[in-house]
């Protein structure tokens, strides 16, 4: 795992859902930070994309592993 990557483990979260953890991490972040989100909630891809567009941040990667969905986000704006 790369140094400086913050893991946000939201596996199992359905309500209020993974955006809770992402928003909490965003509050304490700085430009250049990289988040790696782990989730099982199917809606997470669309929601993080909408979040990134709204906040001006960047989705670096979005993939489905057998046990989880992994999304990497770069913080460009704070």
């Amino acid at each position, binding site marked *: 795992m790369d140094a400086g990557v913050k893991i946000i483990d939201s596996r199992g979260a*359905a309500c*209020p*859902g993974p955006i809770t953890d992402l928003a909490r991490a965003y509050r304490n972040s700085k430009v250049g930070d990289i988040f790696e989100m782990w989730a099982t909630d199917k*809606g997470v891809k669309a929601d993080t994309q909408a*979040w990134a567009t709204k906040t001006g941040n960047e989705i670096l990667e979005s993939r489905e592993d057998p046990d989880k969905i992994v999304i990497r986000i770069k913080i460009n704006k704070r």
Partner: protein
Amino acid sequence: MKKVLIIGGGGGGLILANHLDTNEFDVTIVDKSDLHFYQPWFLYIAFKGSQRKISRPIGELVRPGVNFVKDEITEINLDERKAYGSRKVVYNYDYIAIATGTSPDPDSIPGLRQIYDEYGDYHSSVYNSQKLWSHVKNFKGGTIAIGQSSPTCKCPPSLLEGAFLLEERLRGMGMSVGTSDPVSPSNVNDPAKTGTKGKSRIVFFTPFPRAYSAEPMNRVVEPMVKERGIEVMPFFDVDTIDGQNKTINSLEGESLKYDLPIIVPPCKGPKIKFIPETVQDEDRFIKADKNHMKIPGYDDAFAIGDCNTLPTSKTGVTAHLEAMTVSELIQGKYSEFNGRINCPFDTAYGKATFVIADYNNPVVPYPPTATKHFMKMSMARIYWMTLMGTADPIFEQFFKFTTPEKLNKKYASVE
């Protein structure tokens, strides 16, 4: 006899205490307050002016044999199995369960303290709910900004419940709600629709992508939000509040002007010093594993209910189910919490629904009905029995017939 020490006499702490065999265990609850509150009723105090008594002494809610001590715990040393009270009293234990709920933190957002002191809110206390009611009932028109100021909050549906009940109240007072309120010939004689008593806007702001965070339930409630003229500002995570200019600014860079602010403060974990301090996260919530509520590294320490970091909603029902699991574990049986949530959701005008899901099944798009509203209202009466354990058979049946797998088959497939 092994000593079980429970910090907090809320839903989680009481249900755990009342399910332990006091012939086998020496059970003590320590709470800083001697009263237990039925928090869901804060909504009806704040938006309907209810004067119902919603507290009872904790000492009267424990089964015979369970000890209750009024004291505030300030420090817990998990390595030495000791908890420290306010007057340097030391509590030793064989097992500890921390069930301290959340504490409101209006000072963590610039400008929020002043709003919190002046207007109250509908999440923190009876006093704050009464304060908010005095503003709601005297509201003369303008924009009401209502929402949560941080993504972590108790009872996710309660935020939108507040907006729904507020809308019902304003129309009941003869006000119009929303910018494009239709005044058609059919409702010209209805003061609630013509808005003869003033015009209002309700703007519901939320850090989530939509009115209700979980998408399947949003599909159910969003049409109601629109129909009632409630405006939604999604992805609005409160950064600062400018009381002078009556504006709320979001982390995402937007601003919202208000005449009446209804802002639920961020909630944090307990103000207790832990040894080791690594058991708390940056918001002081206590880390625990999601199936057994054990604090990592300790077989004798649990965190249950709102105070823990489980990836589930902070609700009374989850606190209840987590407490049941921990009581079995302490008594040497195997048990696992599956993340089940079951949050009642009042959609106003006499209807309600439930937000149901677990770790493996998404939220059910469960439609509101009058029967579910009746169930939510009945809960206020049987609540005290659920704390004592006497309502367990009803609950078991209810949970059996409403598993998210079953309900999703019925409701998610009809779309």
